[in-house]
């Protein structure tokens, strides 16, 4: 001690540090190894390890194949669409995935590069132009390798050899990520016993309402907060919706009661489902036309326009901004029949802020048509397909690898959060950003009430006939005439339908 005290402070400090280090090493040696099995569940740890190991071996296999092909650079063409701008990660994620893949390839000593090319289409390109472009390109031999579309196209795409079945790939890569896909989504990609695509996202279609208008109508906060629950329990029906919308309109609080989409789409099938209609009979593999439900739906729309005057008679030839987003975000309509992605759109466009949305906008299922029936919503998963031309070019493996990489909890959450779509993977729901998104959390229960549209090649016919009929009813045709038109058009399509009472 005397020795130490006579030395300079620096030497003392070094000596203390050395002793501490030796003591530390001894203690460290004596205590057991890091408790992986206790802090992080061992199974989880092993799972991540196994997944990484699987993926590494897949990339290795891929690398060998790529080198065998002899190309220095392999370009994968990817076509995706919003058409709403916030969904840009449908494409961007591929660029990120290609970057990751290239880093691995470099690390493995390969000099092959994978390049992603393609496009993310937004309005004014609408779905129909996008699909049209795909079919034309495919016929001209210029199809993209990866094609994003709605799941309902699978029947047609598969029947006509535009895309390849992915069962073997999914099997092969199952443990890498696909075990994690929420199982109902697989139903959306199945057709004739095969899986033809990988789910990209899904959504629910809520009925939005303005809380501020309900407040002005004298509703208490408790009553307002209870509305979604009442709808969920079937205590607030489409009839009540008409009454309430009229009340708000008569009180001069709003210009319209309800706005719905202004172009053809699938949203209004929810009203039919709310009246107890069925779309699909899985046992027979046929689409279903429930007569009573369609009659009630058409009558409901007619009354909404001409008796209650809460829907504009020209809503269907209206303008997205002036007749849909605008009236609702400015509080000029009480209800909006929309989709979960609209929340993302309103905020990204600056039509609402997160706070004003929380303060003034509520959301619920689409109500049951009448007492005793169930509330509904509709989901329309988008999917990634691999085209026949990719397979012919010998790049289906690379394309599938890229799809596997974008089907990643983190990357997919980029998309889900930016565009208010729902998770497709269980582990994505646990993504810290996803758990913090209160809206996505709050609409998740709606998936229990959801329906997919049928993957039938004639689905487009059903959609057209329904669109024409509802548009006609809103434009003043009688519900009876519209119903007769609908039925006769459906009958013309023959055996693909089950027509039930």
């Amino acid at each position, binding site marked *: 001690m005397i020795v130490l005290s006579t030395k300079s402070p620096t030497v003392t400090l070094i000596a203390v540090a050395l002793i501490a280090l030796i003591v530390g090493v001894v203690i460290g040696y004596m205590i057991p190894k890091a408790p992986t099995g206790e802090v992080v569940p061992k199974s989880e740890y092993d799972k991540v390890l196994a997944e990484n190991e699987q993926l590494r071996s897949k990339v290795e296999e891929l690398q060998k194949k790529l080198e065998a092909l002899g190309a220095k650079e392999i370009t994968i063409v990817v076509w995706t669409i919003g058409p709403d701008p916030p969904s840009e990660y449908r494409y961007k994620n591929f660029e990120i995935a290609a970057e990751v893949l290239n880093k691995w390839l470099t690390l493995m000593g390969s000099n092959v590069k994978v390049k992603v090319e393609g496009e993310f289409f937004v309005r*004014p390109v609408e*779905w*129909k132009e996008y*699909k*049209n472009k795909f*079919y034309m390109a495919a*016929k001209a031999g210029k199809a993209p390798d990866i094609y994003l579309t709605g799941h*309902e*196209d699978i029947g*047609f795409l598969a*029947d*006509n050899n535009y895309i390849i079945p992915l069962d073997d790939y999914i099997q092969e890569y199952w443990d890498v990520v696909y075990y994690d896909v929420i199982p109902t989504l697989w139903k959306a990609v199945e057709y004739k016993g095969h899986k033809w695509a990988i789910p990209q996202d899904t959504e629910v279609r809520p009925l939005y309402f303005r809380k501020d208008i309900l407040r002005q109508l004298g509703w208490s906060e408790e009553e307002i907060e209870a509305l979604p629950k009442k709808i969920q329990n079937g205590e607030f029906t489409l009839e009540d919706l008409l009454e309430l919308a009229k009340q708000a309109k008569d009180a001069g609080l709003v*210009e319209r009661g309800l706005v719905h989409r202004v*172009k*053809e*789409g699938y949203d209004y099938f929810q009203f039919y489902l709310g009246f107890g209609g069925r779309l699909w009979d899985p046992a027979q593999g046929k689409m279903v036309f429930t007569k009573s439900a369609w009659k009630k739906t058409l009558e409901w729309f007619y009354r909404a326009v001409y008796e209650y005057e809460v829907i*504009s*008679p*020209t809503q*269907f*030839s209206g*303008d997205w901004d*002036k007749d849909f987003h605008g009236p609702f975000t400015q509080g000029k309509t009480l209800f909006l029949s929309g989709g979960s992605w609209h929340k993302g759109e309103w905020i990204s466009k600056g039509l609402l802020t997160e706070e004003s949305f929380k303060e003034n906008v509520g959301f619920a299922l689409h109500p049951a048509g009448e007492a005793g029936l169930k509330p509904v919503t509709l989901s329309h998963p988008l999917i990634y397909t691999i085209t026949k031309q990719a397979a012919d070019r010998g790049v289906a493996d690379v394309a599938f690898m890229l799809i596997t990489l974008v089907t990643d909890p983190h990357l997919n959450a980029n998309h889900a959060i930016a565009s208010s779509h729902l998770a497709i993977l269980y582990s994505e729901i646990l993504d810290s950003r996803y758990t913090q998104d209160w809206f996505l959390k709050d609409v998740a229960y709606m998936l229990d009430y959801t329906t997919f549209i049928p993957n039938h*090649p*004639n*689905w*487009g*016919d*059903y*959609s*057209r006939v329904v*669109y*024409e009929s509802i*548009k*006609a009813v*809103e*434009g*003043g*045709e009688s519900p009876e*005439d*519209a119903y007769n*038109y609908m039925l006769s058009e459906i009958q013309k399509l023959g055996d693909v339908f089950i027509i039930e009472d």
Partner: protein
Amino acid sequence: MKMFRFTGKYLWLFLGPTLAIITIFFIIPVFLTLLISFTDMDYAFEWNWIGLENYIRMLEDQWLPKILNNTFFYVFVTLTCFNVGMALVISILTTHINEYVGSAFRAIWLLPRITPSTVYALLWLWASREDAMSLFNWILGFFGMPPINWRLHQPWLLVILVNGFVGVSFGMIIFTAALKSIPNDFLWAAQVDGASTFQVIRHVELPLIKWPILFVLAYQTLSLLTSYEYILLVTDGGPGFFTTEVWALRSYHLAFAQYGGRVYFGYGAALSTILVVIGLIMSILYLKLFRFRELIIEPKIEVQ
């Protein structure tokens, strides 16, 4: 002097390029349309021959008579009121006033034509909105009238105005050019003979621009028969069932505009084929009516 005539290889040299263009861009498409109309082609682009099935389906379609009626109504009214009628009126009026003022007026009438069609249609949609503050309803309000939903209550008026304002410019340019090329001697001679302005127009100008009128009439009939884009943008064939749906729009709706991705190229082509036939008949009628043959024969006198 006898007119020089091309024969032999020169004939083909001079006619060749035009013939090639006509064949590739006009005759082959018509032929293809005809062929496709005998198939059930969709996005699979398969040539499945189904004979006359599409034409039988057409006969069974209870809405087609209404759509055909709409088409004739639309073409006739737009043509007489605007594409030929208004074009003629504007050309005559603007060539009879101060040249600068006349040109300015004509330039204004070109504006709808040079506006991109979707923007132009959108302007009309906004002007005709149902709310009280839209342009049309604001004007109605001036006269103490309540606002109306134009697209619902006056769809045809809207469709014809939207198309008409665009359609005037073509005829206007042709007629103006024709009127300006009438030698002044004719007009002066008529005036010396004591003809009033109206008589000059009626007996000198109009007969002299008969050929351009035929051309505009025939051309615009065909162009209106096949036009649908403004109707698509403004009413989309509504309100109600096929209220403003015209033949070409029906063809478009079935062949291309399916949200659900289901298309009927075959049936659409059959509808188009009928349109081609109607167009051909109309053209022949016009040529007969205006005695086209007489217009193109060699002059009986020669001016050296």
